[in-house]
């Protein structure tokens, strides 16, 4: 990058918000150091920085809290890291409208605190809410256990403002909960990992805070029995907000197992009116009893929150030093079988593995423990896992792995027939390819 360009960027955001040299160590990505990290203080500043970078053909990597930055292939170019953390304001919250508009850099924790003070919440619960930013969560399509009932970002985001590659401020959607005017642009930016634009504002749907919230944990000897319990719950009158399944290794890794003989557990979230939550907890106990649980607990308050936090963070916490995390999607009915088979694969390669699933939507986090000096067993296991998932008709993304592993195992699935449309969208919205180049599906 030309020194003159860096001076211009300093002129826009102020010298104290431009990091260079050794200060860049937190922003090293896949072994590469960016040329600068820039922290604009307003949408206008984001716009000016992008216009400059675009003009000069310098790559820009948007960066929220950095909690999902490990997802993606190694960048083909790394110029400016664009930190959004100063865009951290809640702009509008009208409780009667059940909507809120906030800047992209607000952390989930700060957003929830502000909404909670007025009796509402944003019903998305991905991991690391203290650091994760709203824009980052949307860009990575991050979610958590409550997606079972409340859906993912695509169900909650109703409006977005992005700064496009050339610096233009573009708005999609709006501030109302129902809106079909024009194309549904907010959907495009969800899960686009910053390759189409930088999310600077988002308007989301909210829910009233529940009167009560409990977690029912049922432990089983075998994972298979957990699977049966899931089916029983899904065909009952229960309306859980979360249906998570953990295998024995995950339970032990997170310190949630009561006894050594527990091969898996079903974690159910129930929130709503007090009377309803009470009925659901009792009914859940009755419903899952048919699958023969060896353990049954109802958690409230701090114990509940701590447990969910650990479950969400399973990718970092299942093992002291996890080697890789693969997130995979299969049909809900395939979850226990895929998890069992994947466990056998890891064992055969001499590695420990832990699994946590949002069981009723078929999304599984598979964590692989470090196997020592050689990366080979990790690579072999991940490849076999991929095959397993593909054979089931599903897909997987390598969420985290050392560079040596990423060089051997693809981060994304090979793109399908619709990929040419994705490429064209990218070419239309970022013709110079400056936004987060090389990290996304198919090398976008």
């Amino acid at each position: 990058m030309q020194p003159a360009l860096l001076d211009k960027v300093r002129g826009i955001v102020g010298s104290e918000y431009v990091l260079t040299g050794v200060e860049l160590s937190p922003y090293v990505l896949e072994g590469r150091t960016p040329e600068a990290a820039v922290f604009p203080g307003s949408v206008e500043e984001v716009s000016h920085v992008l216009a400059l970078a675009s003009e000069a053909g310098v790559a820009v990597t948007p960066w929220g809290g950095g909690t999902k930055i490990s997802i993606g292939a190694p960048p083909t170019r790394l110029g400016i890291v664009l930190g959004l953390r100063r865009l951290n304001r809640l702009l509008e919250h009208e409780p009667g409208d059940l909507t809120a508009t906030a800047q992209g850099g607000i952390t989930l924790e700060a957003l929830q605190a502000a909404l909670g003070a007025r009796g509402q919440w944003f019903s998305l619960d991905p991991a690391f809410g203290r650091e994760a930013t709203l824009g980052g969560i949307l860009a990575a399509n991050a979610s958590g256990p409550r997606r079972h009932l409340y859906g993912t970002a695509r169900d909650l985001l109703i409006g977005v403002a992005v700064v496009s590659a050339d610096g233009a401020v573009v708005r999609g959607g709006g501030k109302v909960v129902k809106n079909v005017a024009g194309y549904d642009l907010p959907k495009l930016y969800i899960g686009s990992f910053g390759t189409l634009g930088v999310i600077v504002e988002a308007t989301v749907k909210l829910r009233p805070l529940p009167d009560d919230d409990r977690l029912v944990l049922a432990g089983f000897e075998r994972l298979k029995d957990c699977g049966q319990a899931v089916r029983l719950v899904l065909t009952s009158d229960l309306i859980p907000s979360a249906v998570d399944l953990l295998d024995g290794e995950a339970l032990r890794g997170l310190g949630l197992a009561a006894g050594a003989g527990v091969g898996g557990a079903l974690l159910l979230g129930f929130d709503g009116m007090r009377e309803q939550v009470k009925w659901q907890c009792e009914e859940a106990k009755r419903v899952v009893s048919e699958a023969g649980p060896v353990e049954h607990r109802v958690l409230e308050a701090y114990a509940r929150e701590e447990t969910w936090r650990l479950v969400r963070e399973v990718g970092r916490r299942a093992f002291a030093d996890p080697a890789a995390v693969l997130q995979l999607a299969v049909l809900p009915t395939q979850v226990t079988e895929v998890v069992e088979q994947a466990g056998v694969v890891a064992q055969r390669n001499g590695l420990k593995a832990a699994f946590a699933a949002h069981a009723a939507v078929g999304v599984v986090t598979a964590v692989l423990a470090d196997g020592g000096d050689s990366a080979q067993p990790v690579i072999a296991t991940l490849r076999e896992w991929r095959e397993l998932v593909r054979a089931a008709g599903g897909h997987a993304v390598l969420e985290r792995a050392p560079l040596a592993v990423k060089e051997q195992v693809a981060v994304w699935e090979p793109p399908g027939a619709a990929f040419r449309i994705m490429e064209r969208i990218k070419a239309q919205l970022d013709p110079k390819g400056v936004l987060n180049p090389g990290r996304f599906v198919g090398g976008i």
Partner: protein
Amino acid sequence: MATLTESRKNTLRRAIQAIVGKSAVVSDPEELLVYESDGLTLFRALADFVVFPTSTEQVAALVRLANQEGLPFVARGAGTGLSGGCLPAEGGLVISLSRMTRIVEVDYDNQLAVVEPGLVNLHLSWAVGPRGYYYAPDPSSQQACTIGGNIANNSGGPHTLKYGVTTNHVLGLEVVLPDGEVVWLGGKMRDPQGYDLVGIFVGSEGTFGIATKIVVRLLRKPQAVKTILAVFDEIEKASEAVSAIIGRGLVPAALEMIDQVTIQAVEDAFGCGYPRDAAAALLIELDGLAAGIDAQAERVGAACVEAGAREVRTAKDEAERQLLWKGRKSAFGAYGRVSPAYLVMDGVIPRTKLPYVLRRVNEIVAAANLRVGNVFHAGDGNLHPNILYDPRRPGEEERVVQAGAEILKVCAEVGGSISGEHGIGLEKMDYMPFIFSPADLATMHRVKEAFNPRGLCNPGKIFPTKKSCVEVGPAYRAHPIEEQGLAQRF
């Protein structure tokens, strides 16, 4: 608008017949008239051919033919749309999906179904109902409208307040792209990789291709349902009750408002049990667990009474519940009793702006010396002012369209949108700048370029264009299918 020469038309007819067979092509001008409008009869456009394929392969072959011949094409479902979205604005082919009505697969264990686009919305819920499941999006036209049409318009309905609109229930689409290639977007699994092409396709009003298979989520029927009617002597108080209910942390499955003009029309037509002298009524539905539903109903009732309801009653059985819903869902049909024609608007506003905007709507319509009936999704802030008029009176239709534009301007001014579920189509293209900047529109246009670079797929919609051959009033005439009693407007 037929501009093809006779000989070219004959050549094309033979090529189309070779794909779909003789009995699946309409090109007789009289018969084509049936397809010149959708539910919004304000606009009319004639196709050169209406074609009825029965498979993905046939749709793809038709689209490839259209590309070879440079013919515009547009998909059509049941034609219940309300923005002119499925009209052949530049002539060419109308590809009717009405013969692709199969339920390809139902997977109860994974709570999903794969259907063809011509399947009538309600027929899916009928099919899976016996096993305790249903398909949630429920537009008022659900007895006739197709799921493919719902995809194009991202249709809503009364129960979208709690359950979301079409896009929230679609997992995957088999699509014939505008160049004729068949691809899958998304699928049965969650979180497909790459850009959310399903998300951008749903609601693209047929401009990104033609969906030929649709993977939808099925929901379990709720354990309990409670339907409440709250009656008000002032429309303002009913509006305040809406905010009060939401403000108390209650999320009903549906929260609908019906005003006096509409109540009287509905009572004349069907006798559904709404009090004729009420200024407005709220139809509120709670569903979910049986536990706590009575307590919720009490909270809703209390909110209504506090806002000034003169009467709150709960449907005592399924028959009464169905009757109340019949009144709501057939309201549009009932307007025919009180007015020769009406124009339904579809603005959306933040819920808290309801009292103000309803007042403005009434002022605007009164100033134009017209009448309005309101029946709408109050809980979502999705207004449906129906401006009543007589198209035979010179100048009246222009005044209606003008008043409609003013109403949408007010919706935009309070931070709302110009369409909640009917789409832009031909009707609201010129109003897009009310809510979108040139940069916003340019971005949408770029996305369109990615899908539909030749512009043959449903041209002349969403974005303003000069090429359109669409006829716009004022010379009103009843639509042929209305005359034949085959359809009512929704």
